[in-house]
């Protein structure tokens, strides 16, 4: 597939990386030639320097035969214009724009083909905010990914000594929770997936991925670790876009404090927020943190745009007694370094966003994609089409499928009803949505191929 990416920022770069590794022809456009050079040195892609909204430049970048346009520059306006040009001048079939302003969500008519012609709009800040929001709702979880509009969830949780399942084989889960449908999708030990058989024993420190209906998540997590009390006091370090959105989303229910260094920004935040308390200061300042009772804080989230700052203030907060700390970390190396150590959760905004971008790239009929473990693994919701003859999936039980290694079918959504694939004798019907967990992303083409309908279907 020929893909054009406008903007080589964090989102643009990580999309490019991910798409190149899946053997797509990627061209990246950005005004910053230096940044493009770095990107070109790292990955096998083409770069063009210049203003992404100019038709000549898009033509030079090969817009004429492009299959998909990602407009992910920092400016909403540039992205909108680029989509319009892409549609009108080059007739690019799929145009995805990153739009920060929440305003467009209220006015979908502006994104129609006769207006700005944006086929899909995404807002990374909003996605990250929702992601953190889920973690506040389930404070024990490392990650929560929704499928079928939130009916079933894929949850990552770290097993901790004292959890009833710890030191028990996986098959015991059915006995411990007889009335709940739950499927363990994968277990990571020391950052590596281990082969999952019914006799696999859950160890303390394991990262366990399981699938269950949303209302059962709590009970399942309680098997893996002791449950914390619900989050009540939250400190958000950094009042940027994400900090503001997050504070606004949770301030009605929780006690929220926002720490921001810039005085002017503080005044703006205080004007925007209703009950959250805005503090002017440095989140890595010990005195400020102790004045604000960081030791009684249930959750400390550092979301400034500086990785080092986020890590340091999160570490400091943890040291000073914050029950749980989350840091926004853009660089993958840092993220891998930090997660599971002093910092409970390191969130990579680029990879969090990646899932919603990849939905549009995947071949076949894909309903949702979630990037897991900072881009290493993936959970994907695929739609099965055809019949027993034309499809290699439909009409077969799960155990009969020729799944690539590391792939597990964990859930089926049939006619709006979510089934957790606890047993492997479910027979797949046409139009079923299948949730597939992949420990290795390079198996994605194989999965896509498996779900392709043979020509005879048409």
């Amino acid at each position: 597939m020929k893909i054009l990416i406008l903007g080589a920022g964090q989102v643009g770069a990580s999309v490019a990386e991910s798409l190149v590794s899946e053997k797509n022809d990627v061209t990246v456009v950005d005004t910053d030639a230096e940044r493009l050079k770095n990107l070109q040195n790292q990955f096998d892609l083409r770069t063009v320097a210049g203003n992404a909204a100019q038709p000549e430049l898009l033509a030079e970048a090969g817009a004429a035969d492009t299959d998909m346009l990602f407009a992910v520059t920092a400016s909403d306006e540039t992205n909108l214009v680029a989509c319009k040009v892409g549609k009108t001048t080059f007739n690019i079939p799929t145009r995805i724009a990153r739009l920060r302003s929440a305003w467009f969500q209220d006015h979908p008519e502006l994104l129609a083909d006769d207006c700005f012609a944006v086929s899909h709009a995404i807002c990374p800040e909003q996605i990250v905010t929702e992601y953190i929001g889920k973690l506040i709702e389930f404070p024990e979880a490392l990650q929560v990914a929704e499928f079928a509009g939130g009916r079933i969830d894929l949850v990552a949780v770290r097993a901790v000594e004292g959890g009833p399942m710890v030191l028990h084989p996986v098959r015991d889960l059915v006995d411990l929770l007889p009335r709940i449908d739950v499927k363990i999708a994968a277990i990571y030990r020391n950052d590596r997936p281990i082969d999952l058989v019914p006799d696999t024993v859950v160890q303390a420190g394991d990262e366990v991925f399981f699938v269950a209906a949303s209302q059962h998540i709590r009970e399942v997590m309680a098997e893996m670790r002791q449950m914390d009390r619900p989050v009540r006091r939250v400190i958000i370090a950094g009042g940027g876009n994400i900090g503001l959105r997050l504070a606004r989303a949770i301030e009605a229910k929780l006690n929220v404090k926002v720490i921001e260094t810039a005085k002017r920004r503080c005044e703006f935040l205080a004007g925007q927020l209703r009950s959250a308390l805005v503090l002017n200061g440095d989140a890595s300042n010990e005195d400020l943190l102790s004045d604000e009772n960081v030791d009684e804080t249930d959750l400390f989230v550092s979301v400034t745009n500086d990785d080092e700052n986020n890590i340091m203030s999160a570490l400091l907060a943890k040291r000073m007694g914050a029950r749980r700390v989350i840091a926004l970390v853009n660089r993958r190396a840092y993220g891998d370094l930090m997660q599971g150590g002093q910092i409970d959760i390191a969130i990579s905004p680029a990879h969090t966003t990646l899932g919603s971008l990849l939905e549009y790239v995947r071949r076949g009929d894909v309903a949702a994609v979630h990037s897991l473990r900072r881009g290493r693994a993936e959970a994907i919701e695929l739609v099965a089409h055809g019949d027993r003859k034309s499809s290699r999936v439909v009409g077969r039980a799960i155990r009969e499928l020729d799944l690539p290694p590391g792939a597990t079918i964990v859930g089926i959504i049939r006619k709006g009803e979510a089934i957790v694939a606890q047993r492997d004798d479910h027979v797949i019907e046409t139009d079923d949505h299948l949730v597939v967990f992949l420990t290795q992303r390079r198996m994605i083409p194989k999965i896509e191929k498996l779900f392709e309908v043979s020509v005879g279907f048409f």
Partner: protein
Amino acid sequence: MSRPIPPSVRAGPPPRVIELALRVFPVVHVLAAAMLLFSPAFLVPLAFSLALRDGSHAAYGTGFLVTLVVGLFFFLATRGRHRRELQPRDGFLLVTLVWSVAPAFATIPLILSIPGLTFTDAYFETISGMTTTGATVLSGLDRLDPSINIWRSLLVWIGGMGIIVLAVAILPLLGVGGSQLFKAESPGCMKDNKLTPRIGDTAKGLWGVYFAITALCVLSLKLAGMTWIDAIVHSFSTMGLGGFSSHDDSLGYFKSPAIEAVIVFFMLVASLNFATHFLAVRRRSLRAYLADAEARRVMIWMVGSVLGIAAFLVARDVYPDFATALRHAAFNVVSIASTTGFASLDYAQWPIFAPIWMIFLSCFVTSSGSTGGGIKMIRAVLLFKQALREMTRIIHPRAVVPVKFGDQVIENNVIFAVLAFMLMWGGTIIAMSMLLMATGVDVITAVTAIIACVNNMGPGLGAVGPSTTFAVLTDFQTWVCTITMLLGRLELFTMLVLFTPAFWRK
């Protein structure tokens, strides 16, 4: 080479008196125009007097002619080369002059038709009318010519018209006591949408609403059983939140729950921002009231206090049943809290908590942009929020806490203006009460009389309670009250700024 000397230096500065006159002439010119506009008001009681043949018509005719001739004289005398554009600073002088000169002319019919009435008392009466206070020095109201009662309540009604425009359009321009935020702030939905772009059009729109509601009030009172004359007198008094009645017993004269209910309703209407009424009429939707953060609070305080006082009266065995208590509490509490000043009975006889609470309410339970007095709900709310902010700052020294009203962040300079206003308001009450006490008035009478005057509410307690009048005061004390009413109506600073030397410098 010496440069030519500028002519002003050569001629020397003009004498101070002439300089002052040059400053004042344009203001006098506009003031004279305002008097010319005011003069037709005399024709209203004149018409009533002729129709009712009560014999006072000559008094109004005289008043009309004097106002017209004096107005015309000054209008023509200050015409021509002294004309210049008025500056915002001239507004202070102009507003103060209008509110003190018009009542002076308005005394003419009172002095001519009420034998033995001194100018001091007559001026108190007309100031009380035009500031929509409703305190009176007259007794034997029932025996007065009906046209005199029409005249008194007409002054309230005209004063109300003036206040609405003053509050919505003029004071915000002058920025008195933080009132610049009334305009931007009052109903939440007005933020992006000024009523109309021009002051003149805004005034016409607001007056249209005022007029329409008044007409509605007259009809309702007539239907509730008043005579036409009484209905008009009481409608004028109600809409201006003044409180002049044509009966010594005020609303107690009628002994009619229906009339009381109608008046309570219209007092509540008049204590809301007329800009909100205007929006509600124009958009034909009640949503404007929901969006008005002040209106909501006014209603909560009013309704809460009525229920609370009613329960209190039952608990203290003043009334045997809750229904009677509710009827009397509803009327008198709303009347005092809205700074109207009607009374359906002598509520001063209630246990002291009730009348004191009512007077307390009169200090702040009216909306900005209404015809009510006091410090206004918005200032009280800002003050309270400022106090909360200081407490938050003590606990969280690094916190950035803006004071908000609705969703709007209030600038610090507005908060300071409100604080200064409150200080002056408190200072005025203390100073003026001291003056009354120094001249021999007892403490309850002195303090409540001054609060009643500065809030433009009407009756106080003690010797100036609802069953008596301000006639017991000496001439000096009457003047103290007169000035207090003016100060309160013009939001203190409009008038006080005239007494600073800097105001008169170039």
